[in-house]
């Protein structure tokens, strides 16, 4: 039985009684919370205990719990294993652990609850992050016998980063430490010190036993020294309604509703602020403004839309907006930028590599994105900031991101809805990471406003069309000698040029990079960005790098406009290069002293359709230079 309704009520009064009951239910507020903490600290048992003691279980569910406890139980003969109420997957029951989040619902006289029971195993941290992203409160469990562990700290860090507002430290298994006050107070004090360091200012500490139910829903007889609230009592009293920090209207356009020529509605969910008909709104990132003509729902038009409501807006003017745009209060706009700094929690087996291109989803916008700088990783144990070249599964980092195009957003601290994003692996489609935006790095709007009056054509003058001549080929294939001679020839012809190669880049700009995979990607990315700037400066840029991977060359090509990137393939056979071996590198590589050497134990991917192919083994340098000059004239570069 789930209620206090009286089965004996006369039928005539029953309807009224139900109506009154339903009205009470509908008026209740909702608290979403998670249980988290280290492996086996008793999270699932605690939720099971809450459901059991709140009488939220049906007889058939209790019967199968009894049967399951006999089969899989970890609590000994004749005792219910309440964790089995929530550990619903076969693998979980067999192993006695939680693998993925379980969502359960229960109601008390005071409010409704959605609780997400999250796994303690480090391996499944991303599932804990899933639960935490929508939680108002976190119940962090600690085993009284073990105290605060690494995973307790990792979960705390995530809880803090994800902006969970209320943190409860439940010191569990008090039965196993003789209900010791000292133990509780020591752990609580320990944790408080740590919590302060990660920006959790308020922690409520409660000694409990999930096994016996002490201080879970009823005060403990064993711990009369504890004068605070029970866990449930506390959860019933914390304030549930997220304060509206934003105050200004935000709605990401999900879908454009066009039943006929005369109706164009923008569908979305109000992410912040209230909206009234007649309000002035702006459509971002474009910036056009209009007024709200109607707020349409199937139940009739509204005069006001509230945060959380799903609505369809009709605007007064024929303005264009589509999925990915955000409709906002014209007077209180979010940031619009294509670069920002954010905390990232990485959730994929493939590490996050700076410079690699991902898809970023924020609101309803999906854009290409890359981490341009991994500022540091956070050691979840010590909270120290450590330099990092990549983020592995479950790592937390702080980084700068650059997007293909500007998007509107707020700081995560101001809005979970408009300050959050996920990163998606382009190949596997996996949700690989999640992020919380801290601040914009530069305002795209400003950049447009300050766009220079001079463009690259003006800077280049009438003598040349600026472009990148990208030489690719094996070590010793002759890239540098040809590039060198070509530059001299161009100079003789009065053209403005610049050469970028390993020597002038590796020793300066890229001095901090080595030869790991992530450093190679970053090396080429920087070279490509610099060559783009030099094209903007009006120069003919000669780049000579082995650049063995097609993907990197594609990326470099994509930075400049069509026709501005000429790929020059030094097609010299490996035997010839190896015989030349000008720097003795092949010999070293063959001797095993230079691992990952292109052509020996690392692949070279030849271009599919280079603009120019030079046969390094057959032609002399002058002939090759003449060939390139001829091609540049044909393409009217010079």
């Amino acid at each position, binding site marked *: *039985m789930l*209620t206090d*309704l009286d*089965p004996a009520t006369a039928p005539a009064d029953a*309807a009224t*009684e*139900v*109506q009154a*009951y*339903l*009205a009470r*239910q*509908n008026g*209740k507020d*909702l608290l979403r919370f998670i249980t988290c903490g280290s492996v086996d600290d008793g999270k699932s048992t605690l939720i099971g205990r809450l459901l059991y003691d709140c009488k939220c279980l*049906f007889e*058939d*569910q209790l019967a199968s719990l009894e049967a399951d406890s006999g*089969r899989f139980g970890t609590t000994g003969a004749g005792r219910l294993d309440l964790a089995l109420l929530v550990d*619903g997957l*076969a*693998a979980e*029951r067999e192993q006695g652990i939680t*693998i*993925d989040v*379980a*969502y*359960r*619902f229960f109601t008390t006289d005071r409010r409704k609850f959605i609780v997400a029971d999250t796994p303690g195993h480090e391996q499944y941290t991303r*599932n804990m*992050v*899933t639960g935490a992203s929508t939680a108002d409160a976190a119940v962090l469990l600690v085993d009284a016998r073990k105290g605060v562990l690494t995973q307790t700290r990792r979960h705390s860090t995530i809880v803090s980063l994800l902006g969970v507002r209320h943190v409860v430290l439940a010191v569990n298994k008090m039965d196993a430490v003789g209900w010791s006050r000292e133990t509780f107070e020591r752990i609580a004090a320990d944790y408080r010190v740590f919590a302060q360091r990660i920006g959790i200012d308020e922690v409520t500490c409660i000694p409990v036993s999930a096994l016996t139910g002490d201080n879970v829903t009823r005060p403990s007889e064993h711990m009369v020294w504890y004068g605070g609230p029970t866990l449930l009592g506390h959860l019933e009293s914390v304030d549930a309604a997220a304060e*509206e920090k934003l105050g200004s209207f935000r709605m990401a356009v*999900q*879908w454009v509703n*066009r*039943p006929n020529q005369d109706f164009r509605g923008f569908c*979305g*969910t109000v992410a912040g602020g*209230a909206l*009234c*008909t*007649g*309000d002035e709104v702006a459509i971002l990132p474009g910036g056009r403004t209009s007024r709200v003509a109607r707020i349409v729902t199937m*139940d009739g038009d509204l*005069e*006001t839309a509230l945060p*959380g*409501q*799903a609505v*369809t807006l009709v605007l007064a003017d024929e303005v264009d907006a589509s999925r990915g745009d955000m409709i906002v209060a014209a007077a209180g706009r979010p940031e619009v930028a294509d670069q920002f700094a954010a905390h990232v929690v990485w959730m994929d087996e493939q590490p996050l590599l700076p410079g690699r291109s991902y898809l970023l*989803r*924020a*609101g309803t916008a999906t854009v290409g994105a890359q981490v341009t700088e991994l500022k540091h990783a956070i050691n979840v144990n010590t909270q120290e900031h450590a330099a990092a070249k990549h983020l592995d599964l479950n790592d937390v980092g702080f980084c700068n991101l650059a997007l293909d195009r500007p998007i509107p957003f707020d700081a995560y601290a101001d809005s*979970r809805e408009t300050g959050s*994003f*996920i990163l*998606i692996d382009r190949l596997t*489609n996996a*949700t690989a990471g999640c992020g919380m935006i801290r601040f914009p790095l530069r305002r795209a709007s400003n950049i447009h406003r300050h766009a220079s009056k001079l463009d690259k054509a003006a800077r280049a003058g009438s003598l040349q069309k600026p472009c990148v001549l990208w030489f690719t080929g094996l070590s010793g294939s002759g890239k540098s000698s040809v590039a060198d001679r070509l530059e001299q020839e161009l100079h003789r012809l009065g053209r403005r040029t610049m050469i970028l190669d390993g020597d002038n880049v590796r020793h300066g700009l890229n001095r901090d990079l080595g030869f790991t995979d992530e450093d190679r990607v970053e090396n080429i990315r920087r070279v490509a960005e610099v060559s783009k700037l030099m094209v903007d400066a009006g120069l003919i840029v000669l780049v000579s790098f082995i650049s063995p991977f097609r993907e990197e060359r594609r990326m470099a090509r994509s930075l400049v406009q069509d026709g501005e990137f000429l790929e020059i393939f030094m097609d010299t056979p490996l035997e010839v290069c190896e015989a030349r071996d000008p720097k003795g590198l092949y010999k070293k590589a063959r001797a095993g002293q230079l691992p990952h050497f292109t052509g020996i134990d690392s692949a070279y991917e030849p271009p599919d359709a280079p603009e120019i192919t030079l046969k390094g083994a057959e032609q002399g340098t002058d002939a090759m230079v003449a060939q390139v000059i001829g091609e540049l004239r044909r393409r009217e570069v010079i």
Partner: protein
Amino acid sequence: MLLDPLLDIRPAAREISGSGSVTGSEASLPAILTTPARLTHLQRLEAESIHIMREVAAQFHKPVMLYSVGKDSSVLLHLAMKAFYPSKPPFPLLHVDTTWKFREMIEFRDRMARDLGLDLMVHINRDGVRQGIGPVSHGSAVHTDVMKTQALKQALDAHGFDAAFGGARRDEEKSRAKERIFSFRTSSHRWEPKNQRPELWSLYQGRIHKGESIRVFPLSNWTELDIWQYIHQEAIPVVPLYFAKPRPVVERDGTLIMVDDDRLPLRPGEVPEMAWVRFRTLGCYPLTGAVRSTAATLPEIIREMLLSTGSERQGRVIDQDAAASMEAKKQEGYF
């Protein structure tokens, strides 16, 4: 059915519009924000479900709504009408007909599609029919697998649907409590419970490769009580079988089975009796247990549910087959 004034669907909006003229000028904004207006519980659930449905319409090429004719499907359909209003939902309905549904369900299904002007597709596993598969002759496990799970996969493959809505709720069963709202399926329709995509905030991620699909559960966070309360509030039509009236039943292995047509072979000594019964959940009639009841109105049904000591799944013969069977069935592609 009349709306209860206590359960007005837009109390917040009413409060505000009643509080004076709302012009939307800057000056009046603070006044509105300080009004402690809050969505009701059902409004929150409704908004979340609508949000999910719109995401599907926007992210997928060819979505479909699985329509099983039960109370959850009725709510799902109602929400879809709301989500895309004034347009019609931009996807068809699909009913996987096992050929053993209650006759009243089929009548109701056809009437709903007609009244709402929606595109309804009905799929029957013809191979199964040819082999004479049925719940009585083959038992619930084989019948459910062939006529429901395999049939569903046939239909999804034949039409190339890349997203399919279902009305499952997390409060129904413990493996459902573990499932994401956007739940990824491999190209062979498998659910991998140990390797689900993280699902953060309200960012539902539906990117898939060709052949893969997403099952979508907009009612994930609704409970049975929420469903009935919403049906009551919105006056949503449901199959009359949910309301008690005298029906012909036999008691079999402790379960009341309704004799809906002459395909149910009666065992020796079994004589159908007319009894006041209703159903808490609907499926194939030989697999669905009735409960004795006189609850003939929504408040009575809700009251009975609140006072009940058993869960709604109790009436389903299919769920009692084996422990953890739901998870196994879901892995195979069952909804």
